[in-house]
């Protein structure tokens, strides 16, 4: 069945899943972290994963990135099993301060992804300028991460991920450590960047409103072991707006539903 999220720019192409979990179980140190997760993410879809802390949402993202291998079941990308990370899947880590190279400038950090992809040195400067402009850091190319605010560092990490020209962008609580104003600004920027790039997004967050605001679909995980407990389609109109979308009665109803789910899952 095709998810009914066709109102926005992220209209889904019918057909097979881009990221497909089938019967994925992961044990770490004899402990079941995820159990029997089956999940299809369509090309161009914006999927949000929520859940109480420790429910395995970050682990699920790492499986999708190919950083972990499942104990049983398969994770496939474009129909092929994921046995290692791929350059067309980019991952945005929550702890931007640790994911950036402190000895490289903003431009140098973006350059790392271009170097990895084998972009010729002569073409890198132009691409770096474009990418930094795209994330709103056009005048900070020569700054080091330590000289930038948290929001700027996270933009820089996003720019590095976009440099991979990803088919899928995996985001692990990317705005969790940022203040509310910065967070809302970045939510809108991510939405417009994603719309422009047509990438599939899997976005992990513990902020229920953020999940509803951004996603075409929200999946809630139950803890111990992590398994899918709820799945909601978000039919809110796009483009979304920080004020009107969040005041939409449907938004509030969804928020209520997720809130009750989290409360029940913690009980």
């Amino acid at each position, binding site marked *: 069945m095709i998810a009914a999220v066709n109102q926005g720019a992220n209209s889904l192409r019918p057909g097979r899943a881009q990221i497909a979990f089938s019967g994925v179980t992961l044990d770490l140190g004899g402990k079941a972290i995820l159990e029997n997760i089956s999940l299809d993410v369509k090309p161009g879809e914006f999927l949000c994963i929520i859940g109480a802390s420790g429910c395995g949402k970050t682990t699920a993202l790492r499986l999708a990135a190919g950083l972990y291998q499942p104990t049983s079941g398969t994770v496939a990308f474009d129909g092929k099993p994921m046995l290692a990370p791929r350059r067309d899947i980019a*991952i945005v880590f929550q702890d931007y301060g640790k994911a950036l190279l*402190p000895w490289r400038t903003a431009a140098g950090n973006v350059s790392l992804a271009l170097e990895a992809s084998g972009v010729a040195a002569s073409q890198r400067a132009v691409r770096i300028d474009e990418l930094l402009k795209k994330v709103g850091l056009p005048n900070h190319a020569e700054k080091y991460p*330590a000289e930038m605010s948290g929001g700027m560092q996270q933009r820089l990490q996003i720019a590095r991920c976009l440099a991979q020209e990803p088919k899928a962008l995996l985001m692990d609580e990317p705005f969790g450590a940022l203040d509310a104003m910065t967070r809302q600004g970045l939510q809108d920027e991510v939405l417009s960047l994603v719309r422009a790039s047509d990438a599939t997004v899997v976005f992990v967050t513990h902020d229920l409103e953020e999940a509803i605001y951004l996603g075409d679909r929200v999946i809630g995980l139950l803890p111990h072991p992590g398994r899918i407990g709820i799945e909601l389609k978000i039919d809110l109109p796009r483009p979304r707006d920080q004020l009107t979308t969040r005041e939409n009665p449907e938004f509030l109803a969804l928020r209520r539903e997720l809130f009750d789910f989290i409360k029940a899952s913690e009980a």
Partner: protein
Amino acid sequence: MIPERIKALLLPIAILAILEIWARAVHLQSDSLAPPSAIAAALVEAFQDGSMLIATRDTLISAFAGLSIGGAVGLACGIALGIFPIFDRLMEVTIEAIRPIPSIALLPIALIALGFGYRMEITIVAFACVWPILILTRAAVGGIEPRLIEVSRALRLSPADRVRKIIIPAALPRIFLAFRLAAGIALIVAVTVEIAINPIGLGAAIMTAQQALRPDLMLAYLFWIGLIGYLLNTGLMVAQRHLFGRAALVGDSA
């Protein structure tokens, strides 16, 4: 800034002055001590006849060659052990058994195998330098932020690029610290080998001065060795601050 430096020099100058006055007052005649003025004169004399420069050159060549060879071996092994924990476990017993051997204890074997001269001295200095660099490089590589390793995996950097672009730069501030420690060790071991047996360099020059009953010259060499060690360490510290000020700062706050 400058008054502070002058303050730091006040005490040594005062001590030298007192020693000078005391030596003159008691008409010092000794095989082991000499008044500061005589030491200074011996130092100038040794520079003028060229013997000081030759001895300094010999010692520094041995120390730096040993440091380079030992440092390269220690760096390569330290990186390999830091990256591959299996390798680390395999080598652990061997390393811990060899490491405590005082480098000077290798002198008899090195002498038989290599004879007098640079090769023997360089070998012993290299042996002494391998360990601090190996141990600290291994720790530095093992202590790299795991997130950076994940980034390099996600970007599918080749193993060579991973070492060149992530691991070495991330570990470099601590590797440089190891290099600075090893440089001090290299100088100490080189002079020790020369004093013990090798007839070249500053260590041998001290022994010659001692046997010629020239305490002034002996102490002049001693002063010069101390000055070289001081300048070496200061130079490397300035370089460290200059090169890694930013990276070291970030590493500390993380």
